[in-house]
């Protein structure tokens, strides 16, 4: 879209999407898409719902392509609301999400990552 040295104009901006669907047979959800300013409310709402379950929570994230710092923060908030001993298990999150959590929430023990 952009040209050298000048602002691009008339670009078609497809809105980023985030889809949320229940996981069969276990507590948690599968998310797909990307997490940024416009999809943060949907991401946060989905996380708030799943951490209410009374067991470990699984998030299948293999089709999530990007999570910004606020999205990682929503995950940290959700993990903080888990009752004692329960975990939030991330299945195949984007590598950058794991890195952001390690850098900015190094003390978070309730989140477990499986590749």
């Amino acid at each position: 879209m952009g040209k050298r040295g000048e602002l691009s104009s008339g670009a078609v901006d497809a809105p980023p999407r985030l889809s949320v669907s229940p996981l069969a047979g276990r507590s948690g959800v599968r998310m797909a898409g990307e997490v940024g300013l416009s999809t943060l409310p949907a991401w946060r709402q989905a996380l708030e719902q799943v951490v209410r379950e009374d067991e470990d929570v699984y998030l299948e994230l293999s089709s999530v392509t990007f999570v910004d710092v606020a999205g990682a923060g929503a995950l940290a908030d959700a993990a903080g609301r888990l009752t004692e001993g329960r975990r939030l298990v991330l299945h195949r999150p984007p590598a950058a999400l794991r890195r952001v959590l390690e850098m900015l929430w190094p003390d978070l023990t309730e989140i477990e990552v499986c590749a």
Partner: protein
Amino acid sequence: MSAATAPPSGTTPPAGPFVHPALFYRDEDEYLAGTVPFVRAGLAAGEPVAVAVPGKRLALLRDALGTEADRVRLLDMREAGRNPGRIIPGVLRAFADPQEPGRRVRIIGEPVWAGRSATEYPACAQHEALINAAFEGRAATILCPYDARDLAAYVLADARATHPTVIAAGDSEARHSDSYDPFGVVARYNEPLPPAPGALALPVVAASLSTARHTATAEAARLGLTGVRLDDFALVVAELATNSVVHGGGSGTLRVWAEDGHVVCEVSDAGRLDDPLAGRRPAARAQRGGRGLLLVNLVCDLVRTHTAPHGTTVRGWFAA
């Protein structure tokens, strides 16, 4: 500090909780004479001690300390502190904050060396000035060595303005600096950034954040970033652009270009950055939000900002 002198060796209790002398040295002997007793006094007092200095100096100090070096956290400042904006949260407070509350910590931090580029230097001077605010009221002693033989005169003059006390070359005592003016240094190096000819420029509004990030990241890949560095670049672009949309008047301009072996991104907007410590405070676990600029500082090789009443520009460099 009100005291005229503040010996760094710990033989006299410091007048204020935070002690921050600059140590001017001209050669290896003066370097060791100024640093080794400082480390030993800390270890003898049971204080946690860290040394973050350029690799060659680190090796020199490690050899001089012998087995005592095992009790000191040693970091190569050329890596840990490559981006000066990372040093407070990622090196100094990262070492000091987890220690037992109330226990004095002792750190040698050398963020300025003769090889620092003219592009990096303003960020170095601002960092040195902001240490005072970041550690105000804390029981910490941070000694900052300056190579008085190889560094330019203006760099040494800045060190006198960013440190409340200075140990002159060949001296053993810290003396009050008459030119101490840390916020003056922060303001003086709040310089407009040179324009980037030929940069890819993308308008950023809420609806175009995702597209702009994808386009900018594709450009960074084309310019040579790969793997984790490319992931970091995408995160930085997202944080800076989102900040412009949320705090910077609703829109901004994102630019990407290559410069001296780096891929550079920049976001300009109509907002104003009033908090000089933004992105330099380590985040407390309970704290929500406020980590975007911290991430930018932690992953970039250099961050420069210019803020004025009419707008703010934040620029991040990634070694390609």
